[in-house]
C-alpha cells in the first residue's frame, strides 16, 4: 500500500504546486488587469482612505480642491465652488472623475511611482499614501475677474480664455454657467438635469461659429498668397462667389466702395474677405491655415479635454459659396474659445505656437518639487514677417476699426471682433486680442454666447482682462 500512498501524495503535491501557480497568475500576471476592471471597486475604496493631493492655483496659496477627514474616510472639498469646476472637475465614488481630478489622478491619488523616500517607505509598508499636490497655471484674480465678467455679460453665458503667448501658460479659463462640485454624489443628478448645460466647459468643449474672428486666419492665408494690407478692393455691398445665385453681403447690409485690405479687416467687411478667399486664397490654403492654427487638434499633451475645432468637411468638398462664408467664420466653421485664444496667442508670439500648459508644477505633500513644466514650442504657424504684418493689422482694428473699446491707456492692443450668426437667438459675440502688441504678455479670447454685437458685448470684457493681467505683470 505504501507505494500507492506515495503516489497519491505526489498527486496532492502537484495540486498544491498548481494552486501556488494559479495564485501567482492572479497576483502577479493578471494583477493590473483585474485592478483596471470597471467592476473592481477596491482601488477607489483604498483612495478614500488616504488624502488626495491638493489642487492649487498658480499662487500656490489658493486651494481649489482638498481632502478633509470625515469619519473613517476622506471627503473631497472644493473651496472655490463653481469658479474653477470646469477645469478642476469633480471626483466621485459614484460618478467617476473629470477635469484635472481625472487627468492628474495618478499624482493626486498617490498612485504614481514613488519619487521621494517618504513615498517609497509608505508604498513599501502598504499604508495609505497621501497624494501629491498639483499647482495649476491659472491666476486666481484673473480667473475670478473672467468668471464674473461672463456672469454679468449681456447673455450671462460664455467663456473667457487668457493665455501667456510666450510661455503657453493658461492664466484664465472661465466658463459660465457652471456647477458647484461640492457634494457631487448628492447633487449630480440635479446638475445633469439643469437645462443650462452646467457640466459643459464652454471654454474647451463648447463649439461656436467664430464669425469674423476667423478673418485673422483668412488674412494670414491671404498674406501668404501675396495679398498686401495696402491692396485695394471694391465692395459694392454684395459678392456672388459662383457668379450668380447666393450673394455674400455685409453686416447690416453696408457697402464700403473701394477700400484697402487693412480697412476690410478694420471694419470687418465680409464681401471683401469672401472675394479674397475665393479669388486669391482658395479652399485648400484656407483649410490648411486653419489646421495649422490648431483646428482639428485636441491638444492631447494638455491634461484637459479639448473638443477639436472644425472648419467643416475637407476642402475638396467645398464649393465657392462654402469657401466664401467659411472665410468669415460661418458655414460649418466651429471653434472653441480656447482655440481662438490659441490663434491670438500664436499671432502675438511672432507666429510660433507654444504648447499650452495648465499644470505649473507637482509637489509631494512635504513640498518637494516633483515635476515642473517649462515653455516649449509646439510649432511655427506663420513666418515672422507675416505674423508681424498680421499683428499690425490687428492693432489697426483697435486704433482705426470697430474694436476701439479694447484700448488700454499707454498700451498698444491688437484684436479682432466677431459677431457670429447662430441658428437660434442673438449672434455670438467674440473678441480675440493680445497686448502689448509690440511685446505681448497676454492673449485673450472672449465669447458671449447669444451676446449680441461684439463691439459692446465682448470687446470691453477682453479689455478688462488684459488690463488686469498687465497690472499683475503675469
Amino acid at each position, binding site marked *: 500500500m505504501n507505494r500507492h500512498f506515495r503516489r497519491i501524495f505526489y498527486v496532492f503535491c502537484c495540486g*498544491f504546486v498548481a*494552486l501556488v501557480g494559479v495564485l501567482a497568475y492572479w497576483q502577479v500576471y493578471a494583477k493590473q488587469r483585474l485592478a483596471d476592471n470597471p467592476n473592481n471597486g477596491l482601488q477607489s475604496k483604498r483612495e478614500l482612505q488616504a488624502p488626495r493631493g491638493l489642487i492649487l492655483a498658480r499662487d500656490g496659496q489658493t486651494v481649489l480642491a482638498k481632502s478633509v477627514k470625515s469619519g473613517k474616510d476622506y471627503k473631497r472639498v472644493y473651496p472655490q465652488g463653481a469658479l474653477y469646476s470646469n477645469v478642476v472637475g469633480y471626483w466621485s465614488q459614484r460618478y467617476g472623475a473629470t477635469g484635472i481630478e481625472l487627468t492628474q489622478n495618478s499624482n493626486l491619488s498617490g498612485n504614481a511611482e514613488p519619487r521621494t523616500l517618504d513615498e517609497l517607505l509608505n508604498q513599501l509598508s502598504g499604508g495609505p499614501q497621501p497624494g501629491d499636490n498639483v499647482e495649476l497655471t491659472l491666476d486666481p484674480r484673473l480667473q475670478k475677474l473672467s468668471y464674473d465678467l461672463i456672469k454679468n455679460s449681456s447673455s450671462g453665458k460664455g467663456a473667457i480664455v487668457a493665455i501667456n503667448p510666450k510661455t503657453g501658460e493658461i492664466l484664465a479659463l472661465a466658463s459660465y454657467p457652471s456647477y458647484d462640485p461640492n457634494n457631487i454624489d448628492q447633487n449630480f443628478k440635479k446638475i445633469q438635469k439643469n437645462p443650462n448645460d452646467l457640466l459643459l466647459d464652454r471654454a474647451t468643449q463648447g463649439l461656436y461659429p467664430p464669425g469674423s474672428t476667423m478673418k485673422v486666419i483668412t488674412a494670414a492665408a491671404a498674406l501668404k498668397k501675396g495679398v498686401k494690407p495696402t491692396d485695394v478692393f471694391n465692395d459694392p455691398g454684395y459678392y456672388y462667389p459662383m457668379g450668380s445665385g447666393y450673394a455674400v453681403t455685409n453686416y447690416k447690409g453696408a457697402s464700403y466702395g473701394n477700400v484697402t485690405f487693412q480697412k476690410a479687416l478694420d471694419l470687418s467687411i465680409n464681401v471683401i474677405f469672401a472675394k479674397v478667399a475665393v479669388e486669391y486664397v482658395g479652399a485648400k490654403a484656407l483649410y490648411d491655415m486653419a489646421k495649422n492654427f490648431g483646428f482639428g487638434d485636441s491638444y492631447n499633451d494638455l491634461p484637459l479635454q479639448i473638443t477639436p475645432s472644425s472648419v467643416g468637411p475637407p476642402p475638396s468638398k467645398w464649393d465657392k459659396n462654402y469657401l466664401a462664408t467659411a472665410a468669415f467664420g460661418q458655414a460649418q466653421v466651429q471653434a472653441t474659445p480656447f482655440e481662438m485664444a490659441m490663434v491670438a496667442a500664436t499671432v502675438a508670439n511672432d507666429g510660433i505656437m507654444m504648447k499650452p500648459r495648465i499644470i505649473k508644477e507637482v509637489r509631494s505633500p512635504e513640498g518637494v518639487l516633483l515635476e515642473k513644466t517649462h515653455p516649449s514650442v509646439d510649432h511655427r504657424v506663420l513666418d515672422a514677417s507675416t505674423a508681424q504684418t498680421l499683428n499690425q493689422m490687428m492693432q489697426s482694428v483697435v486704433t482705426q476699426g470697430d474694436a476701439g473699446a479694447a484700448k488700454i491707456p499707454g498700451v498698444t492692443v491688437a484684436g479682432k471682433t466677431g459677431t457670429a450668426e447662430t441658428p437660434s437667438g442673438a449672434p455670438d459675440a467674440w473678441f480675440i486680442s493680445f497686448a502689448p502688441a509690440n511685446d505681448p504678455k497676454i492673449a485673450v479670447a472672449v465669447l458671449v454666447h447669444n451676446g449680441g454685437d461684439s463691439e459692446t458685448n465682448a470687446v470691453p470684457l477682453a479689455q478688462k482682462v488684459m488690463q488686469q493681467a498687465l497690472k499683475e505683470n503675469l
Partner: protein
Amino acid sequence: MARRATLPMILALAITFVGFFTLIFVKGITSPPLAYGAAYAGVLLGLYILVRIMLPHADALLLPIVTLLTGVGLVMIFRLTYDVRGIENLATTQVVWILIGSAAMLLVILLFRNYERLLEYKYLIGIVAILFMASVATPLGYEVNGARLWLHLGPVNIQPSEFAKIALIIFYAGYLADKREVMAATSRSFLGMQIPALKYFGPVAVVWGASLLLLVVENDLGDSLLFFAVPLLMLYVATGRMAYIVLGGILFGIGAYAAYNLFGHVQLRVIAWLNPWPHAQDQCCYQVVQSLFNIADGGITGTGLGEGFAQTIPDVQTDFIFASVASELGLLGASALLLVFLAFVYRGIKIAMLATDPAAKLLAFGLTAMFALQTLIIVGGVTKAIPLTGVTLPFVSYGGSSIVGNFILTGLLLVISEHAGKQHAAARDEYYAGGEEYAG
C-alpha cells in the same frame, strides 16, 4: 515520527499573537477580551502537553500545525468580522468551537486509543452516518443559501456531513481492510483492464451511493465531490488497481454531465468558472469575482494585515477565508499557508505509511486524503482554478462543525500514529540498544 515539537508549537502560538497585535496596532481597535486569547493559547498548549503524555509515541508535529492553522483562522476571522454589525463576536465564538474541538479530540483519544474497537463497529457506524446525514430532511433540518445541510440541536446548529464524512471513512477503511484481497483478485478483463468481481462491492456501493444521493438532494456540491473521491482513492490504495480510478473518472464525467443538465445551480457554477466577468454584479458570480479582485489586490507581498478589502466578499469568513489571506498576506503568505496544509498532509500520509495493520493504514490515508482534497477543492474554488463548490478550509474557516470534525480527524490520526510509533519503538528496542528520534 517526530516526537518533540515544542518549538514549532511555541512558534505557532507566537505567530497567532503577532497577528493579533498587528491588527490591534494597525486598526487601532480595542483588543478582543483577553480571556479568550489566554483560553485559546492555554487550551492548545495544554492539549499539546496532554497528548505528549497520553500518546508519547504519536506524531508531535500535527498539533503545532493545527495550532497554526486555527490561529491564522482566528486572526483572519477577527479581522474580517470585528466591525461588522451582527457578527462582531464571531472570533470569540470560534474560540469556543476550538475549545469544544479540543475536548472532542481528547475524548477520541481516551475512548479509541485502541481504534480496532472502532473498526469492529464499522457497519453500525456507516449506517448511523447515513441516517445522521438524512436527518436534515426532518423538521430539525434547515436550509442556508439553498442547501439543506444544517440541523438544529438545542442551542447549536450542526452540519451532519462534517461528522458523517469521518464516520464513513471509518466504515470504508474497516470494510476494505477485510475484503481488499478478494477485491484485488480479478476475474475478467475489459478493454485490457482487469475488472474485479463485483459481489464484494455491495456494501461499499450502497453506502457510497446513499451518501452521494443525500448530498445531491441536499444540494451540497463540495461535499458530494469529497464523498465521491475519497472512497475511490481508498479503493485504489487498498487494491492497487488503477481501474478503480479510471472507472471513477468515467462515473464522475457522467455524473457531472447529468448534474449540469439537471440542476440550474450547477450550470451557474460552471458559468462562474468559465467566464464570470460579464456577470460580475450578478448573484452567480459576484462572490468569486470579488474574491479574485481581492486576491489580485494582494500582489506578491499582500496589502498587509488589516489593509485589504476582503470584506467585499460575501460570507468571506467561511468558505472564502483563503481569499482574505491571499489579499492581506499576498502570494508569499498564501503560499506559506498552503505549505502548512501540505505539511499536515505529509504527516498524515507518513502516519498511514508507518501504520502496520491495513485498516489503520486505510483509515489514516482516508482521513488525510479527505483533508487534502477539501483544501484543494476550496482553494481551487476561490482562485477559480476549478468550479467553486462550497466546503470549508479545514481549521481556518469559521464554522463549528467543521472545526470539531477536523479536531476529531486529527485525534484519530494521533491514535493511529501512537500505535505505529509504539510498535516501531518496540521493534527498534529489540534490534538496537535504544535510539530516539527527534524533530523540532
